[in-house]
């Protein structure tokens, strides 16, 4: 293909991209993301504070893939941004399921799983990632130790256990 042919085909394709950028769905979605400080753009986009339809975000994401990059983490950390954060296509639902467990998901519509996971601590409440509930049976002596350490160290009981785990792991690794 000559350079002139390449440019001509690019111009035709660009015309389609520009039409999609004028679509109200794209404008609504970009307005919300830009207004929330999640994206910056040199396009003029009217701010939007309304909750978004996930399917519209997926559609707009075909034009601006950065929307897809942020979407899964937002569904976990900021579900109120969306009209219904549970009405998801299967591939997105699987990604969100993995992120809820703080696991790296598979790639999603051209976005690497590692990239998707990387946004989890950076949107919504910063540096907070989903935690998982685990139940254990403790004996009376375990509970006594747990309460004693919690009081002495001025930590929650959960943080006492977390700290104990890390200390044990470090000792094991250095042995």
């Amino acid at each position, binding site marked *: 293909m000559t350079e002139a042919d*390449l440019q001509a085909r690019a111009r035709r394709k*660009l015309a389609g991209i520009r039409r999609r950028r004028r679509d109200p769905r794209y404008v609504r979605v970009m307005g919300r993301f830009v207004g929330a400080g999640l994206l*910056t*753009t*040199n396009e003029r986009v009217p701010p939007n504070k309304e909750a978004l339809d996930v399917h519209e975000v997926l559609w707009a994401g075909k034009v601006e893939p*950065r929307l897809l*990059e942020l979407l899964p983490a937002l569904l976990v950390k900021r579900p109120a941004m969306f009209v219904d954060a549970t009405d998801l296509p299967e591939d997105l639902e699987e990604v969100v399921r993995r992120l809820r467990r703080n696991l790296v998901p598979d790639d999603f519509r051209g976005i690497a799983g590692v990239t998707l996971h990387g946004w989890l601590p950076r949107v919504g409440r910063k540096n907070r990632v989903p935690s998982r509930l685990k139940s254990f049976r403790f004996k009376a002596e375990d509970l006594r130790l747990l309460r004693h350490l919690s009081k002495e160290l001025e930590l929650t009981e959960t943080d006492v256990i977390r700290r104990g785990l890390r200390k044990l792991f470090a000792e094991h690794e250095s042995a």
Partner: protein
Amino acid sequence: MLRGIAERLDRWIVDRNVEAREEGLLAIPACKIQVLGQFALIEGGVPLTLAATKDVDVRGNFEHGVRKELERLLRREGYELDPVGHEIWMPRETRYADLFVGAFVRVLLAEPDAVLLSKALKAPKKNAALITEYVAQGASERFLKLATKYGIDLEQFV
């Protein structure tokens, strides 16, 4: 935006170094910060439709304290340093242009052709619309030559 941050960072280092001299401590050395990725295009005023997440990709030879101050200044503007921004692949031929030169801080922008080449090669799906727009406008000879050299099939974008 980045120019203002570079100025404030430079003033911060100047102040820290005045204190260091008075206390007989080591001064913070001069540093060079190369801006890569989408922000290199935005700050360079490239006439393409650009959108970016809030993370700024840089590569630099700055100390830990300078990095922390840069992160703080970016956060104030609603941005942050991409923790892996320095790993972005750039072609060997990349040229850099000064955005700011201060007493201790020099900030350079990666040239648009190299940034676009990097995006076309390493993240074609994410940047398809951007590359299409650039080719539609008439990509530079330099970009086209580099695309051939690095084996980028531009037909995928049209």
